[in-house]
Each structure stands twice: as structure tokens, then as C-alpha cells.
């Protein structure tokens, strides 16, 4: 159960899968890929509608927007869970039943959300900001809003089950969560270089996202009670705080789960181990705290918020970037520099993901400045920065694992990488660049129709989105073919370089 972060074996024996494990993991991967492609197509439809290339009625636009937001955030979480599970199970005992239960509850939740949106007409956005879900002006029913929120609850329960199982495994192996996170080595003592980064990251995630999901569950239950007992009104500011706390922690947890793929895979191609160090442990300990208290940067335009919280939101936004730059991205570059790395597709994807994450948080950090937020909040600047680190950061991390699995069964994905990755990167940069440029000229986010001066940005964004989808279709076809079609090439026998 101890760490074996051997740098030179691409497919180590302890990563082999039993038949049942392969089935569940394949379900995660295939579902995630298909949903990603469908949600990207929905995104393209929205950008084309804003660009006047498609005629989409506002009610349909906002339904699509709601499905896209909930679908992408949820599925990013699902796919990132697969990354965490795949690597963490090498170090601690995880129960496949809990991993499978998460999938089943996710699918039930997704069904409820899809029914709420496409049958019930719910279009209250993925953020379900009180009291919009119960105040639709006749556009959708309270039942549709309730079904949407029940869908979220089901998904949340699934994630909690998975996290509780991971917590149990970490505590059984390392004694407690603090040791899993490496807190016992923060101030002194010899660093155990075999302590796996995957365990550190997983411990952080199970702590913060359990709290995040509990915060979400509280506000969902409050909103459900209010939906059927309207006399029990809620405090709009309190619900907003809880929703952004939950939303921020959840989406950030997806990054922290997916980044495990970087720690695990990059050393195998560079030939250099990526062990923990004291700065590494400090970075993750600090991130554990910061991700929980940074959420007020979503509320910088709520002037009635206590001003010390707004200041905290700005300062923690800045400091949150430090671990990313100083430890993870820089660590990856150090790992690669003059290493003679073999640029396989997973290696290229993890390096791309580091770029996407590091570059994407530049506009995000700037938006966390109150005086900048005054003119940028809820413009397209916001989808600009979060698509940057999700599309060019987290998704490549997830894809890296998927291609890694396919490579274990096929010869190599390098060919599909050569064809698809440049298209994905160029399309992605055009896509996020169009959002950021539109934010620069104050184009609002979440508008079904745009003023003429914003249309060129929408059209550029559509072209970028189409290119990304083209690459994703290629990747998806290759991964599905690899997972479902080819036979296993005995990964234990595979030597790296």
C-alpha cells in the first residue's frame, strides 16, 4: 500500500484493473465523454445563437444554458472522481461499491435534472439562486425547480459516499487525515519522499468537498422547504453565500482531483520522480484552508456583505494562485526541463493542462480584485477565465488518464494526438480568447441575445468551439474504440521508455 511513484514504468502492475473495476471505470469514462461532447454542442448552439447564426428562442436558450452549466460542472466532477479513484486505490483500500454507488446516484440525479430542464422547462441556471427557482414568472413550475434540486441532492449524496470511503481508506492507512495531508511534516522532521502526492491531494479534496457539498445540501434543503412552504422565506444573502461556497468548492475540487493525473503520469514520461517536499505539503495545506474561505470573491458586488469578507475574498484570491504557480505548475516545468521527456499524448496533455491552469487563473485573479470586479463582474470575462482552466486545464488532465488507459490496451495514441491536440489547443484558445475579449468590451454573460457590437466575439467563439468539438469527437471516438474494442495488453509487462 505504500507509495511507488516509479518514474520509468508507464503502466505499473498495481494499476491493473479487475473485470468489475474495468466495467465501472469504463462507465465513468464513457458517460463523461459523451456528456462532454453533448454539452459542448449545447455550448456551441448558445454561442451561435448569440452570434445570430442560429435562431434560438430565449426560453430554449436559458434551458440549454442551465443544462450546460449543471451538466459540465457535474460531469467534470464525475470524471475527476475517476482520476482520483484510479490512482488513490493504489495507496489505500477503496470499496468498488462506493465508487459504483456514486455513478448510479449521479445518473439518477442527472436524469432528474434533465427531466426538470427539458420536460419541466426549468431554466433557473445551475446556480439556482434563491428565489429565482420559485419565481419564474410562469416559465416553469415549482415542481420542476424541486426536481432539479433533488437531482443535485442525489449527486451530492453519491459524491459524499465516495469521499467517505476515501476518508476511511486514508485514515486506515495513514492513521488520520492530517497525516494523509502531511501536516505532521510541515514544521520539521524528515519528509517521507515516498508519501504519494495523490494521497495528499485526495485528502485535501475529501475534506474540502465534503464540507462544500454539505453547504450545498443545506441550501438545497432550505430551498426545497421554501418551495412548498413559501411562508418560510429565506435570507437572499445567506443563500447566496451558501450557494457560492458550495459551487466554488465543488468546481475547485474537480481541479484538485484531476491534477493527481499530472503528479502520477508526468514522471513516467520525463523519467524523474515527483516526490513530496515541504513546500509541496505547505501548498496543499494552505490550499485546503484557502479554497474554503475564498468564495466571497463571488460576492464582491454585494455591497451589504461585511466589508472584511470582501477584502478577504480579494486577498485570498491572490494567495490561492501561489500554490498553483509556485508548486504545481513550476514543479511540472522543473520535472520536464532537460529531462529528455517522451512526448506521448498523455504527457502532452498534462503539460497543456498545467499551462491552461496557470494561464487561466491570471484573468481569474485579476477579477478577484474588487475594483476590477466593478467593471468585469458577470461579463463574459467570467466564462472566459473559467473555461480557460476547465477546458485547457482540467479536461486535458482527465483526457490524459483516458488516453493512458487506452495506451495500455493499444499501441499508442500519439497519432491521434498529433492530429487532434493542435486543433483542440487552437480552438480552445480562440474560444476562451473570444470570451475574454468580449468581457473587455463589457458584453454580459448569460444573455440570450446580444447587441450588434458583441456579435463578432460570439462568432469567433463559435468557430473556436467548433474546432474544440471536432478534436473532442476525434478523441472520444479513439478512446471509446480503445476501451471497448481492443484487448488488454497486460499492462504489467509494459516498460516505459
Amino acid at each position: 500500500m505504500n507509495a511507488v511513484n516509479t518514474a520509468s514504468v508507464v503502466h505499473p502492475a498495481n494499476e491493473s484493473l479487475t473485470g468489475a473495476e474495468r466495467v465501472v471505470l469504463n462507465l465513468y469514462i464513457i458517460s463523461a465523454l459523451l456528456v462532454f461532447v453533448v454539452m459542448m454542442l449545447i455550448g456551441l448552439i448558445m454561442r451561435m445563437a448569440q452570434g445570430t447564426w442560429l435562431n434560438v428562442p430565449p426560453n430554449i436558450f436559458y434551458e440549454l444554458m442551465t443544462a450546460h452549466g449543471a451538466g459540465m460542472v457535474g460531469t467534470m466532477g464525475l470524471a475527476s472522481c475517476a482520476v482520483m479513484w484510479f490512482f488513490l486505490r493504489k495507496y489505500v483500500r477503496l470499496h468498488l461499491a462506493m465508487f459504483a454507488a456514486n455513478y448510479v446516484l449521479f445518473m439518477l440525479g442527472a436524469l432528474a435534472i434533465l427531466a426538470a430542464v427539458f420536460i419541466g422547462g426549468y431554466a433557473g441556471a445551475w446556480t439556482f439562486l434563491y428565489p429565482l427557482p420559485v419565481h419564474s414568472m410562469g416559465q416553469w413550475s415549482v415542481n420542476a425547480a424541486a426536481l432539479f434540486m433533488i437531482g443535485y441532492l442525489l449527486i451530492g449524496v453519491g459524491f459524499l459516499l465516495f469521499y467517505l470511503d476515501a476518508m476511511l481508506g486514508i485514515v486506515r492507512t495513514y492513521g488520520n487525515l492530517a497525516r494523509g495531508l502531511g501536516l505532521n511534516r510541515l514544521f520539521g522532521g524528515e519528509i517521507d519522499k515516498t508519501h504519494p502526492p495523490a494521497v495528499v491531494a485526495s485528502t485535501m479534496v475529501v475534506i474540502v468537498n465534503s464540507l462544500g457539498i454539505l453547504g450545498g445540501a443545506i441550501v438545497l434543503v432550505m430551498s426545497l422547504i421554501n418551495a412548498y412552504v413559501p411562508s418560510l422565506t429565506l435570507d437572499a444573502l445567506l443563500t447566496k453565500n451558501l450557494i457560492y461556497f458550495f459551487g466554488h468548492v465543488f468546481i475547485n475540487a474537480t481541479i484538485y482531483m484531476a491534477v493527481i493525473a499530472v503528479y502520477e503520469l508526468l514522471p513516467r514520461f520525463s523519467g524523474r520522480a515527483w516526490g513530496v517536499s515541504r513546500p509541496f505539503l505547505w501548498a496543499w495545506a494552505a490550499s485546503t484552508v484557502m479554497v474554503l474561505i475564498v468564495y466571497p470573491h463571488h460576492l464582491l458586488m454585494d455591497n451589504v456583505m461585511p466589508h472584511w469578507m470582501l477584502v478577504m475574498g480579494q486577498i485570498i484570491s491572490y494567495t490561492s494562485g501561489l500554490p498553483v504557480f509556485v508548486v504545481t505548475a513550476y514543479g511540472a516545468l522543473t520535472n520536464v526541463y532537460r529531462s529528455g521527456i517522451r512526448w506521448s499524448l498523455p504527457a502532452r496533455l498534462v503539460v497543456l493542462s498545467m499551462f491552461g491552469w496557470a494561464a487561466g487563473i491570471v484573468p481569474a485573479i485579476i477579477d478577484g480584485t474588487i475594483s476590477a470586479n466593478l467593471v468585469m463582474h458577470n461579463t463574459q470575462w467570467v466564462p472566459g477565465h473559467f473555461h480557460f482552466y476547465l477546458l485547457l486545464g482540467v479536461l486535458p488532465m482527465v483526457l490524459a488518464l483516458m488516453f493512458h488507459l487506452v495506451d495500455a490496451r493499444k499501441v499508442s495514441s500519439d497519432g491521434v494526438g498529433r492530429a487532434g491536440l493542435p486543433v483542440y489547443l487552437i480552438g480552445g484558445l480562440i474560444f476562451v480568447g473570444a470570451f475574454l475579449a468580449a468581457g473587455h468590451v463589457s458584453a454580459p454573460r448569460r444573455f440570450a441575445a446580444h447587441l450588434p457590437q458583441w456579435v463578432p466575439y460570439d462568432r469567433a467563439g463559435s468557430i473556436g468551439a467548433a474546432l474544440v468539438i471536432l478534436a473532442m469527437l476525434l478523441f472520444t471516438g479513439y478512446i471509446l474504440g480503445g476501451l471497448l474494442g481492443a484487448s488488454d495488453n497486460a499492462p504489467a509487462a509494459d516498460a516505459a521508455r
Partner: protein
Amino acid sequence: MTPQDRIWLITLLGIALVALVFIYVIARSGGVPAAAGEVQTRAYAIRRWWFIALLVLGVGVTWATLRPFPVADQRQLLPGAQIVDVVAHQWFWELSRTQVNAGQPVEFRVTSADVNHGFAIYGPDDRIVVQTQAMPAFTNRLVHTFRRPGFYRVLCLEYCGLAHHGMANQFEVVATTGAKP
């Protein structure tokens, strides 16, 4: 240069810097592998310096951007300000006055009659000048002094349902002595 232009420029420079570092490292990733320990020692020594530089930059930017504090005091009323009461509804804006003077502070008291809205003021050049949220049961005070006369558009920047994108109004800023033409 508008605040948006400054933000855009800083962002592009920041992203370009990150990209250049990645391109440099990727370009020097091949060839005969160097000893990992040697590379790490040198890289960590360099890291110490730019980490300190980032810390100093962060402290400086925090100090510079929070003084004066960019959000109006919510309890202390501003004597002599022009008061505009703003009530957001699905899907229209109710403004107590549609004309204010340039060069004198305006205090917007913004609330909502139903759901959350975003009260965003767009200048004559169609760029956002300032904004705050409109929330049910809360009143956000927003204080701004307009320098440029002209028509200012109000748009909703918090998604509020079917006609969110059509929720617009406007007011006029008129020139007074001392205001820019």
C-alpha cells in the same frame, strides 16, 4: 485608457509571460537528460526569488487597489449626494429619477422586488462604469461621480429569468460647471 483596457493589457501580458515560460521549458525538454537533482536545486533557488517577487507584488497591488476602499460605506450617508432609488423587477428597472448632474456624487439605493438582479451602468461608450447587485430585502448603496455627460444605459447582469437580456433602462448625466464636455 478605461479600467477595462488596463485589465485587458495586464491579463494579456500575464498570459503571455506564462506561455513564454512554458514554451522555453518545452523547447529545452529534449536532448540528453540532465541530472534531476541538479535541475531541481537550480530551479528551487530561482523559485525563491520570484516567489518573493510575487508576494511583494501582491501586497503592493492589494494596498493600491483597496485604498480608497472601492465599495461605499453602507451605513455612513454621503451628505449632498444626489439620491436615486432603484428597484429591480422581472423584467424592468424602476428609477426614481432619470437625470443626474455630472461632477456631483450620485448615491444609488438599489434593491429588488422579486429575485436577484445585477444593476450595471453602461457609459456612453457602452462600457460598464460601475455595478452592484439588486437583492430582495436588502438595499445596496452604490456611490459614483459621473464625469462624462450623456446617456447611460442600465442593464441587468444577474440572470433573472426569461427576459433577463431585455431588462434595460437609461438615465442622463447632464453637464454642470466643472464637468468634462
